[in-house]
């Protein structure tokens, strides 16, 4: 079994295709939509959590690549500039995914990017501008 969070960038021409349906039907993958938006005439973006058998997952990814969907692991979306972060912890209660955890002894804030759902709330909330969106 494998479970991964990925970002799918759809070119304009693929907007009419039932891509998620194919992932379920042909590759037996379970999906959970974390975020979706469409820029009309430009591109679509879908953040999915996909789970299934390793082989199915691999073939599903191959299918997506072949039809022209750009894939990216989710953790690349929100990054922390460690030089700017002061470990204050303002981000901790506002993160809906619980991706920021305070280490009790040092009181440093750890960013678990595997939990991040790329909602961007921390980007606006960080007083020192340490959280950045990267595409």
């Amino acid at each position, binding site marked *: 079994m494998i479970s991964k969070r990925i970002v799918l960038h759809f070119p304009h021409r693929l907007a009419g295709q039932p891509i998620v349906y194919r992932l379920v039907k042909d590759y037996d993958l379970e999906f959970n939509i974390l975020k979706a938006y469409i820029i009309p005439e430009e591109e679509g973006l879908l953040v999915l959590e996909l789970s299934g058998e390793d082989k199915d997952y691999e073939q599903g990814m191959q299918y997506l690549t072949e039809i022209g969907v750009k894939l990216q692991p989710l953790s690349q979306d929100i990054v922390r500039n460690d030089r700017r972060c002061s470990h*204050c912890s*303002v981000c901790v209660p506002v993160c809906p995914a619980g991706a920021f955890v305070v280490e009790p002894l040092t*009181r440093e804030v750890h960013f678990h990017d595997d939990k991040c759902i790329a909602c961007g709330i921390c980007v606006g909330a960080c007083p020192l501008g340490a959280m950045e969106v990267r595409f």
Partner: protein
Amino acid sequence: MAKTIKQINEKIKKGEVVVATAEEIIDIVEKRGIKNAAQEVDVVTTGTFGPMCSSGAYLNIGHATPKIKLGGGRAYVNDVPVYTGFAAVDVYIGATALADDDPRNKVFPGEFKYGGGHVIEDLVAGKDLRLVATAYGTDCYPRKRLETWINIKDVNEAVLFNPRNSYQNYNVAVNLSDRFIYTYMGGLKPNLGSANYCSAGQLSPLLNDPYYKTIGLGTRIFLGGGMGYVVWQGTQFNPSVPRKENGTPCVPAGALAVLGDLKQMEPEWLVGTTMQGYGTTLTVGIGIPIPILNEEICRYAAVKDDELWTQVVDYSEAYPQGKKGSLGEVNYAHLKSGKITIQGKDVPTGSLSSYPKAVQIANILKEWIKKGDFLLSEPVAYLPGAETGYTFRSLKERPIEN
């Protein structure tokens, strides 16, 4: 036996001084007892690193040829307006100043990406900044317009002068309303969804000297990575507040006005800061040494998070409307545990003040003192205590009839 600052300075010069941070002194007192700790430890170092809105810096940019008098005119640094109401070439950059064309909160919540606090950070970082000024022209200062790059290494004086920093305790902010609110205490989730606090607690300077027995006018401090001084009580200073048996206030109380040479400071300890939907400010690093002159001062400096209490305040209605009242009292050990209980509900906490940075500041100051680079100064006057009747008033509004 009591010690004097002079004796402690002799020990610093000889390399014999014993310094502990305000965190370390807690263990020392627990293991060795107050009496031994007060004898063995000479200095306790404190630290704090949080957003402090009442901050700013003044510069003397030097005279241009031909000369211009900025006083009475207008000036901008990187598009952010700076105060010109002084003489010819002195300007003051305030941390919360915003460019005239900043959209502010027109599209709510405003982003406030660059303001006076960021100008100060860029200045300290040694970046070239764009100064644009207009003036009315006089016989002795004929010039009416100036556009030039400026740099901290070329200006005459560059002085950080913060009218109110290092608050002695602060509110915990929560939101009782049903919408997310954006405040100077950060974003707060609706229906008691989150609680933000802003103090280094057991490391915070004025919580370790609750009655201002050692910190006074002229106290030499760590300021923004360099050396600075306490120059006055901070604005809104209020010693006349409820206190616990250990002397510490359980509401916002004292504060400090601080000043120091910006040219010695570092951008790591003076950071331009944005509060979404609120505005810009400056995060300031401050560390203050407390000379352990006697057992009483040692006991104050050994205060722990679970002995420091503060009030939970609703920022959706009570705070903006100036309504008194607390939703509950919590201590800093509760706050640092990650959640507090308010009205029977577990509420996750976040801090605006960085504890790891406060620890770092207390340790840097400790090293400076141990190496003999930093001598303690004797205050030339003390901050007003509650016995003076000094207090903090609200504005008495008197409508102006035309």
